């Protein structure tokens, strides 16, 4: 799967979860950039991304990833 395609699918998950069609995620996107992205929504986001790409993050990854770019790197390494 190409990086572009991953971003495209990821973007759709973000839009669904935050119910906001104006969201465009990039490598550098962090929780500071999206208003509703708090720790409680974070978990729903993680679950939805895991289901979208049929993979699992481990605890270490979830606690250390700093932005969407790092998230995508993990997804690529897993699929």
């Amino acid at each position, binding site marked *: 799967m190409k990086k572009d395609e991953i971003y495209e699918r990821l973007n759709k998950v973000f839009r*669904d*979860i935050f*119910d906001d069609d104006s969201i465009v995620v990039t490598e550098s996107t962090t929780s500071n950039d999206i208003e509703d992205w708090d720790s*409680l929504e974070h*978990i*729903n986001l993680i*679950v939805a991304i895991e*289901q979208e790409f049929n993979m699992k993050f481990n*605890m270490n990854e*979830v606690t250390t990833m700093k932005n969407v770019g790092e998230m995508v790197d993990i997804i690529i390494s897993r699929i």
Partner: protein
Amino acid sequence: MNELQYPFNVEYLIKNKKRIKKELLLKPGLLDKNIAILGGSTTSEIKNMLEIFLLNYGIKPKFYESEYNKFYEDAIYGNEELDNFNPDIIYIHTTNRNIINYPSMYDDEETIESKLNDEYQRFELIWKKLKEKFNATIIQNNFEYLYYRLLGNKDASDIHGNTNFITRLNQKFYDYANKTNNFFINDINYVSSCYGLDKWSNQFYWHMYKYAMEVPAIPYLSFNLANIIKSIYGKNKKALVLDLDNTLWGGIVGDDGVDNLSIGPEVPSGQVYLEFQKYLKYQKSLGIILNVNSKNEYENAIAGLNHPGGILRPDDFIIIKANWNPKNINIKDISEELNLGADSFVFVDDNPAERQIVKNYIDGIAVPDINVPEDYIRIIDHNGYFEITNFSSEDLQKNDLYKDNAKRSQMMATFDNYEDYLISLKMKAEISTFKNIYLERISQLSNKSNQFNLTTKRYSLADIQKINDSDSYIKIYGKLEDIFGDNGVISVVIGNIKNKNELHIDLWIMSCRVLKRNMEFAMMDKLVEKAKEKNIKTIYGYYYPTLKNKMVNNFYDLQGFELISEDEDGNKIYKLEIDNYVNKNNVIEVISDEER
């Protein structure tokens, strides 16, 4: 909404819950309820999922959520926000993470016993404090098992085992539940086992976010909880409408012939349908009304139901529609004949095309995707359509009641004059001030009645008990029996006395089983009699329109009241001076067994 039926597409729900919520909020006639969630772990997503399931049931929750793991403090010491919130429901979401002292191998029997009691007492204190402070229904989780067993299989039987400890603690909760009104157990022990305990207990979610179960399991938990709540507020389904061919038996009776149907203990394909029939027969014994809706010649349908391998018989059903009409038309007819809204039906059919038609045409009906015959029972059962909270003896008799009504209809056809028919029924009514034995039924009726309901006010058992104990209300119930049978308590009127000589009717309801029997006039006569005893001069009646209560739009006009105001939403206020009131009922013999 179809996506909110079991089994769930969890991925879809998690992604779309905001959109689903927006859509459901547009539904008219939502019932507002305040729900306090007191959690022993994170509850945020449990609340979100609960909200969409409740909205789907027509209940619009407002939430109070305790701070993380503050269930004990909130209950025992209280806080202003919770006190002012005035909850209708208090849900205590605790799990095995909230058990403080598990047994250890060094403990003797006595020590373990006292650990068990300490754990239990802590919870009992919570419930008692909450009951003292709030007039609310309490829903308490039991405990799920741990995902590891220190003693292996012995963990279940040995008093030192955590599994054993949890089992015994749960039993203590059940004992309390069995002797306490307005207290219900949310059985997460069962839900977690259906879901799979290892998956349920995924520790990632605990260590990362302090969720006591994995997030994808939450829809199952919240759905289970929503079912208890909707049952309390009378939103259970009431009737099953069943297809025949390949639903109640294998094969097509019209094509294959009765002798070639798969039903009975001999072969696997016959066993699976027999088990399903047995399950339905149990449902019937719980007061669920069974009906048939099948594309068949009537004779063939009856022949199939008399197949010796089956256990359901034609007289287990109240209405059998076996014809070639579209199934949605048959459902409308069944609804009219039973005097029950089609939104209280569950339609069961193996054919996805028929299911789709019924879903499209009948608003609010439940249509489970029952999949293959070996899944029928699980899918219907886990949807919780008939969740039992308050079970009254009326429920047990319900099938008989509907059957009696069918006989009355036949008899009515033999009279030209309706009043002659009513007299021939030799009706006897008991109309009195509330009695303790009927309080549960009265509360149930107030929550179930939608059509013959002037104000659509809902009363929990606790509310009814309060009114029962108060002198500022006139509160009467009516029972009605006739030559065909006893209908039980079918009408309730609650009037609030204000300004010494005014009576304001807060609630007037009647079961649709006894429509057009003049029972409402007998109730009015008694209400006026009671009002006069209390020196009431004027009775005020209120009509608040809903989607379902159009049938009583002119109720107070018929009772001789004068309309004094009507607003643009159609809310009406009436009054009646009772000095010269003349009794209206002359077909029902009224027995009054008041203790004065």
